[in-house]
């Protein structure tokens, strides 16, 4: 990114245009790239989820639109966008309208610091990890807003659950990555990736990976931790009252969060883009998609926890495991 700005500045200087413009142009380009990356990956993911779930359930899934239903999602998007946009009469209008954006935006922002390649990152923040831990949790506010603003009791229960769940899963998630920071000695995601050139962190800290991955499932609202949606009891949870394009935004946010979490797991524990023969971008994508397939596989295999059991697991299982991982990581850094 910095090199891109410098290159642009070099071009513009000839015409006497200040560097500020170069920054603005670079930011716009980066935003467009991130949005298109998210858009494309969400489309691929929805298709992948439908196909994988179908084959898990001995069905075929979408087959009509395009080869093996590859264009099904375009049709779906078209359908969702052209649907009537319903805002319930008694809803808290502004809160209701804003909520889907507040859920989606943090997922997009999280992509800023993900180093697909050491040269291919928007911002190499020196507090990158801290940024990643804090930004996506903003989306829980969006979920509460959606639950509260809908003026529906089911939504309210979903929003309440989301608040409780996100707050308690932040803690094991943050604890699990501290081990990585201890190894690398840096919060910068680029440094973390380059620190794994020899050996991936997952080999030293399998527990850390497990805790991070599990907590990420809860952060992304995926089964077995999708209590805020809980379609069996809460109909749709916080998005019960949403329809059309706004519902599509929630859907997009869920997948964007999933991609962000899987990408971060790759960066933290699976060595980012490191690999042999193939370029690092390809390796990065392979790893991310392998994790995503795992998430989808879990989604279509397991039942859902009850919210109170969910809390139990966070506080009684994941937090102790993360602390054990921390102790091991400490011992390893001290003696090896």
């Amino acid at each position, binding site marked *: 990114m910095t090199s891109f700005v410098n290159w642009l500045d070099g071009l513009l200087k000839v015409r006497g245009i200040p560097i500020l413009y170069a920054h603005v142009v670079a930011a716009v380009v980066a935003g467009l790239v991130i949005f298109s990356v998210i858009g494309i990956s969400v489309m691929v993911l929805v298709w992948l989820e439908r196909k994988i*779930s179908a084959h898990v359930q001995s*069905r075929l899934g979408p087959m009509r639109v395009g080869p093996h239903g590859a264009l099904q999602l375009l049709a779906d998007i078209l359908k969702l966008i052209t649907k009537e946009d319903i805002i319930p009469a008694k809803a808290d209008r502004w809160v209701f309208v804003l909520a889907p954006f507040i859920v989606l935006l943090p997922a997009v922002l999280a992509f800023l610091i993900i180093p697909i390649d050491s040269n291919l990152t928007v911002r190499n923040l020196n507090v990158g990890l801290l940024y990643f831990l804090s930004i996506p949790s903003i989306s829980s506010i969006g979920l509460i807003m959606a639950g509260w603003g809908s003026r529906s009791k089911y939504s309210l*229960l979903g929003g*309440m659950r989301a608040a409780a769940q996100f707050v308690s899963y932040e803690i094991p998630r943050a604890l699990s990555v501290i081990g990585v920071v201890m190894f690398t000695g840096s919060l910068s995601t680029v440094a973390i990736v380059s620190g794994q050139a020899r050996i991936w962190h997952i080999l030293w800290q399998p527990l850390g990976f497990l805790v991070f991955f599990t907590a990420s499932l809860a952060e992304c609202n995926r089964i077995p931790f999708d209590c805020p949606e809980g*379609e069996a*009891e809460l109909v749709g949870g916080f998005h019960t009252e949403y329809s059309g394009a706004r519902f599509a935004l929630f859907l997009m946010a869920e997948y964007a969060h999933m991609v962000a979490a899987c990408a971060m797991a790759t960066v933290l524990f699976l060595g980012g883009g490191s690999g042999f023969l193939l370029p690092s971008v390809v390796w990065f994508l392979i790893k991310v998609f392998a994790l995503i397939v795992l998430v989808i596989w879990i989604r*279509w295999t*397991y*039942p*859902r926890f009850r919210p109170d059991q969910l809390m139990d697991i966070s506080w009684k299982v994941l937090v102790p495991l993360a602390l054990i991982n921390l102790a091991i990581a400490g011992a390893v850094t001290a003696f090896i």
Partner: protein
Amino acid sequence: MIRTEEIQINMGPQHPATHGVLRLELKLDGEVIVEAIPHIGYLHRGIEKMAENRTYSQLIPLTDRIDYTCSMVNNWAYATAVEKLAGIPVPERAEYIRVIIGELNRVVSHLVTMGVNGMDAGAFTIWFYCIRDREFVWDLFEMVCGARLTHNFVRFGGVSFDLPDGFIEKAREFCDYLEPKVDEYEGFLLNNYIFVKRNREVGVLSENDAINHGATGPVLRGSGVNWDLRKNAPYSIYDRFDFEIPLGTTGDNWERARVRFEEIRQSIRIIRQALNSIPAGDIVTPGLPRLIKPEPGEAYARIEGPRGEYGVYIVSDGSAKPYRWKFRSAGFSNICVLPLVLKGLRVPDAAVIIGGLDPCFAEVDR
């Protein structure tokens, strides 16, 4: 000053977890259920009143619609009552066909419940597996009577069609197919850690409460009461078969699900024995009149359906139409325990408990 108050939500009549049209009025303290009041009657079609204006044989199609997941069993319960009332004998072969078909229908009903139990807990995939397996039975039924859901198959003094060629082989094939599948689902769903966590110690129904509420079927046996009409008050030819009655111990939701799993295995056992020993002969008692006019009197017959006891009570005034026709549905009594077991639990428990009691609202409301 922060003030808290109970909220009241209506679960249903349109809700993914109520499997039909149950309206459950829940008073909630946060997520904890303070009080649960079930409201029924959204699918009331007045079948019992309709019955008074139809002849006896015109009533058989109505019984299909009482509980659409096991219409063969309903047919059978009704036919048994009329046979008792009018003293109609049933040929040997017809009894065997009834047992085979009835047990297949029990398997179907339990398969659906199994899928639903999974779905209530959030596991979607098991539902598709169960529905896939159900298709095999529907194909068998289609071979026998041409219909797939509402079969209208059992007649007074027998059944309407004989088993077609190849049915016995296909039914055996199905038994061989299903047995390993049940083992697979047991590992996939029943013994799944999360499923056990969701269902163990949830919705506990004590032996006494189960009896006092008139619960029957897997709900009663899940609480450990050894009561199955096939053993305790044998009807048809059930005394000839070798099978066991699976019993639960704690009476929680998981035990009810486990009882159903076991019952599928036992049903397969019965079907195998019946297929091996089915005799040749008439499928319906010859020489029966077209229009049955039983002597004035009354009769009550009951059989063990997948959901419990199906009882049919008929009062005849000597005409071609019943004077009074009453159907005792198992689901109605079973969901009566809802206010009792739901108190103090959480909203997600309500979903799994309703699934565990396995009501079919067409049958509850009639």
